[in-house]
């Protein structure tokens, strides 16, 4: 009896591991394996097809000497910072306003959250039409009689990156709102009541008590938004196509162009290694703090 029940038990013990194993192996090969492959390619002289020789850091030197790469990197910085900050601010305020027990809150919440359901391609295409000076806002105002009205950011190489921010914020601030709203609902009513009894005004309560309490919510939103920003590719392809010129190129579109259309796989993989480093720089401290909290 004992002998026969033992394997049963161990099968039960192994079952979760067996079930998870294929996913684990797939992740190992298709994510970490390919990362290593890409790292290897970035040290090779690969052009049109992969080659497996060793040229040291030459592809990185070539990448850093490339003007277009620095435009892409600067754009990512501008887009990333503005996109994240604006999303957080707008999301937070939308959540606070919605939390004032307004009527038809469910409907309003859905409206704000809906852009999130669209793909970035749809968002990009729609905003391309809205912002096009010959079709969209500028034309509308001019036809209404405001002849001198000008809004040509989409076709102005200095301002085009900000149109990407506009479209990105439109899409993602609803998501931050949902996160913040959940956080606000979790705030203990009694603390707010106690503060009111002490004579604190509502703005002061928000500033001193509620918003600081949302720290973990902001942190989660920050992580999600950051990786959306670094990976952003489809929004730019649909909205500006990287243009005018290459004024709105970001590292992801840069990498794609070099690796797949220009036959410079070496430079392309060096660029994607730089993107990986950027993600690692953000994710590792996050994982570290998460794991440390668990230990405590």
């Amino acid at each position, binding site marked *: 009896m004992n002998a026969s029940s033992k394997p049963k038990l161990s099968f039960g013990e192994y079952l979760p591991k067996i079930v998870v194993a294929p996913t684990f192996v797939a992740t190992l090969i298709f994510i970490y394996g390919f990362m290593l492959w890409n790292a290897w390619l970035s040290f090779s002289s690969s*052009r*049109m097809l992969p080659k497996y020789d060793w040229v040291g850091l*030459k592809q990185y030197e070539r990448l850093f000497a490339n003007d277009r790469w620095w435009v892409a990197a600067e754009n990512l910085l501008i887009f990333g910072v503005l996109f994240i900050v604006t999303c957080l601010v707008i999301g937070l305020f939308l959540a606070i306003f919605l939390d004032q027990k307004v009527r038809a809150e469910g409907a309003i919440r859905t409206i704000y959250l809906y852009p999130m359901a669209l793909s970035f391609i749809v968002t990009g295409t729609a905003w*391309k039409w809205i912002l096009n000076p010959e079709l969209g806002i500028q034309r509308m105002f001019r036809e209404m009689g405001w002849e001198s009205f000008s809004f040509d950011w989409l*076709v102005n190489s200095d301002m085009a990156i900000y149109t990407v921010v506009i479209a990105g914020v439109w899409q993602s601030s609803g998501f931050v709102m949902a996160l913040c709203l959940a956080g606000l609902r979790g705030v203990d009513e009694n603390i707010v009541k106690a503060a009111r009894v002490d004579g604190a005004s509502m703005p002061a309560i928000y500033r001193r008590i509620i918003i600081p309490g949302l720290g973990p919510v902001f942190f989660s939103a920050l992580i999600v938004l950051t990786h959306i920003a670094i990976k952003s590719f489809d929004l730019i392809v649909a909205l500006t196509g990287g243009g*005018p010129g290459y004024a709105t190129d970001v590292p992801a579109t840069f990498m794609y*162009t070099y690796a*797949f*259309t*220009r036959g410079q796989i070496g430079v392309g993989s060096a660029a994607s290694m730089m993107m990986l480093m950027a993600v690692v720089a953000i994710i590792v401290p996050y994982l570290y703090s998460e794991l440390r909290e668990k230990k405590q």
Partner: protein
Amino acid sequence: MKLSKIGLGIALALGLSMSAQAAEVEVLHYWTSGGEAKSVAELKKMLEAKGHTWKDFAVAGGGGESAMTVLKSRVVSGNPPAAAQIKGPSIQEWGEEGVLANIDGVATKEGWDKLLPKVVSDVMKHDGKYVAVPVNVHRVNWMWANPEVFKKADATVPTTWDEFFVAADKIKAAGMTAVAHGGQPWQDATTFESVVLGTQGPVFYNKAFVELDPKSLDSAQMVEALETFRKIKQYTDEGAPGRDWNLATSMIIKGEAGMQFMGDWAKGEFTAAGKKPGVDYICAAAPGTSKGFTFNIDSFVMFDLDNKDLAAGQNDLASTVLSPEFQEVFNLNKGSIPARLGSSMEKFDDCAKLSSKDFVESAKFDTLVPSMAHGMSTFSSTQGAIYDTVTEFYNNDKVTAKDAAAKMAKAVASATADL
């Protein structure tokens, strides 16, 4: 009983011998739009008439970028298609990888060296042996114009760049858009190469874009060409950046704009709108380039496959592609002209006839040059480097022409450097 058995035996034997000769020829191409798809269907029919089966491997995306990505993965995995649509110096890139098939046999038999101009046959050869077969010749240095617009503005169709700016000023003054432009890097480059050819001539063009001579790329002549190129911008409308080329063409068709610089594939748009060449629209060489001809040639490259039947299929495909019948049918649909010299142009329209005449003449006088913007003169990495500087210069007024020329030389050097 016995008879039918014998009959069956014969049929089987026939069937077997048939299948031993017939091959399933897999062809990778990116001709998926209306006129192009029709042309491909014609090729399929002709190849099937020779007893082979056509396995269509179409990858959409006009520029063929996605097709090339798919092709790379197929070749790397050791399973290339029999033939693929690859053009220009990329043929040499693939040749270097040692994956192409030699079709010199059929080429010698049919005397291709005599059927093709030397500039064209050079592109089709790797290491002196034919590896590809040309399908058509596109002329890139066209200017499409709407005569109605010119009449309203009291302007004449320009033949030099000086005349161009006079005409453009008149059209602009008449309240219309002078130049219909699509602000995408390849369209910027298409216009730019016509400016270079028109203002600096074919000798300089070859030095800069074919030989990639750094002294020519960063020269006073290049600066002059760049400055002329930027001057065009003030005659375009605000909606130009990012616009697709066919939308720019439709501005000409509708009479909203006067001129467009685009290759002869634009003709398809006019034809589809029911417009007649010479009446509803004018096709003229870009200013200053009437003696020149920037070519863009589509071709099929054969891949080395360890299979005798398939090799026969590849030879038949190559022979079919260069046959006068296919060259005529295909190019009538596509808007280009036959690559085969001495083809009858009777059924073609006036634009194609002019193109064909200029093609033959420019080949004689060395003014036939490969299109940089369409990847005929350099590897894609170098082409990309030129694209970057040209489009950056055109769109960003803070970059001076002098800096742009210096940048171009630097970017080209970096892209061509061996590691």
